């Protein structure tokens, strides 16, 4: 399990890195944490002619938080840093909740959020979270910079909207409005494994307690993050109120809507039917959690 030969480039500036990528195009891969890329190379499933190591590029390890809570996460920001950052935890609890489920401590010490997203493994937690959070993914190349909505970024298994000369340089997350509740729940065979099914939920309640926005996105349910409009429709306009029976019924209905709207592939570990069932159960639980958290932060509560 030794990787095929490649040329190694270690640019020290973004411009240099992008020029290299522009020159080599699809023959080159960027190397940040390498926690997905290098295993694939060791299995000889991926064989880039050139590796462009970003680790020496200044300014890519920025983790910025504006006073309003907007987050910018650069291409060299490791999972471990996101996981332990208090500002991120305060403003984007969904991201932290999900990132803790990614692999193991040693992998999170090296692996990066941007690298994970650019790898676009449909079983990974973070693409689903990005879709749920409506993240903006900033691609740069020598041609310039553009912002890609997460929902458009993931285009299939290991396939993204990035052009061959582009780098996913930064993820931009806008602050969540007051009254937002989020939750990420997954079930993996072993802690740290890719989930058999994972569900990211974002709900927003207005001052009356009515749900004004709902996003439910699965990982492991298809060839990319699967957002369920049907589930969101069940939740939107609902007013869960304080009746636990009604809340449970709403959550279960939403879970059922999710199960009906996805077509999971099954794996060596799970049947497709079981995945569908898990999506229903996990969604119902995650939605209940998110409602609870939203209520705790709702404008009504602060009155």
């Amino acid at each position, binding site marked *: 399990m030794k990787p095929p*030969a490649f040329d*190694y480039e270690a640019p020290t500036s973004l411009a240099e890195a992008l020029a290299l990528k522009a020159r080599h195009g699809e023959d080159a891969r960027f190397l940040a944490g390498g*926690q997905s890329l290098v295993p694939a*190379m060791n299995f000889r499933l991926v064989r880039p002619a050139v*590796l462009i190591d970003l680790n020496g590029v200044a300014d890519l390890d920025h983790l910025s938080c504006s006073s309003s809570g907007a987050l910018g996460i650069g291409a060299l920001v490791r999972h471990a840093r996101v996981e332990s950052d208090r500002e991120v935890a305060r403003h984007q609890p969904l991201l932290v909740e999900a990132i803790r489920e990614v692999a193991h401590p040693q992998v999170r*010490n*090296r692996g990066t959020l941007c690298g994970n997203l650019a790898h676009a493994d449909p079983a990974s937690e973070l693409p689903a979270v990005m879709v749920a959070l409506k993240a903006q993914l900033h691609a740069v190349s020598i041609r310039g910079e553009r912002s890609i909505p997460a929902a458009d970024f993931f285009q299939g298994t290991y396939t993204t909207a990035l052009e061959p000369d582009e780098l996913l340089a930064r993820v931009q997350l806008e602050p969540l409005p007051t009254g937002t509740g989020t939750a990420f729940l997954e079930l993996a065979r072993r802690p740290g494994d890719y989930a058999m099914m994972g569900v990211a939920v974002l709900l927003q309640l207005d001052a009356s307690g009515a749900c004004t926005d709902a996003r439910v996105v699965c990982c492991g349910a298809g060839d990319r993050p699967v957002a369920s409009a049907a589930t969101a429709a069940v939740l939107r306009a609902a007013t869960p109120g304080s009746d636990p029976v009604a809340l449970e019924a709403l959550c279960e209905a939403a879970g059922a809507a999710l199960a009906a709207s996805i077509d999971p592939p099954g794996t060596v570990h799970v049947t497709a039917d079981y995945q569908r069932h898990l999506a229903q159960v996990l969604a119902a639980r995650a939605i209940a959690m998110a409602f609870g958290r939203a209520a705790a932060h709702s404008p009504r509560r602060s009155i």
Partner: protein
Amino acid sequence: MAARQYPIRVTVNGTEREAEVEARLLLSDFIRHRLGLTGTHVGCEHGVCGACTILHDGVPARACLLFAVQTHGHSIETVESLGTPERLHPLQAAFRACHGLQCGYCTPGILMTMKAFLEQHPDPDEAAIRKALSGNLCRCTGYQNIVAAVSRAAAMAKEGA
């Protein structure tokens, strides 16, 4: 055509080492076969088993998922940086006292993971230890005695402090 060689300078267990390496040389192979530090073991070469865990700039990382060329200008610590057979590091002594190893193959990677963990979490409970250990597979022990050894090392460090 000979493969292109890249010069690197890396601090290994406190000593600066210089070498010329092919870009694709895995750090695990560099440590073991170029530097002769065979205490770092290779179990899977796809980042799952954790046997090759070393400290990269003080942080646990899989040596099989790094290229040696990437360590230029960085520091690496391997199990050889801990104690010697005559003078075990307290963590190593705790593993011996608690029978925290059997075949010992996964052990160096576990020691390096736990060394960094204990520095960050000097007073961990069992659940925290098990979580921190979850990225290192052991096929012999069933983990219980490893957990006990890490607890013991933490307790002894506290007593000594």
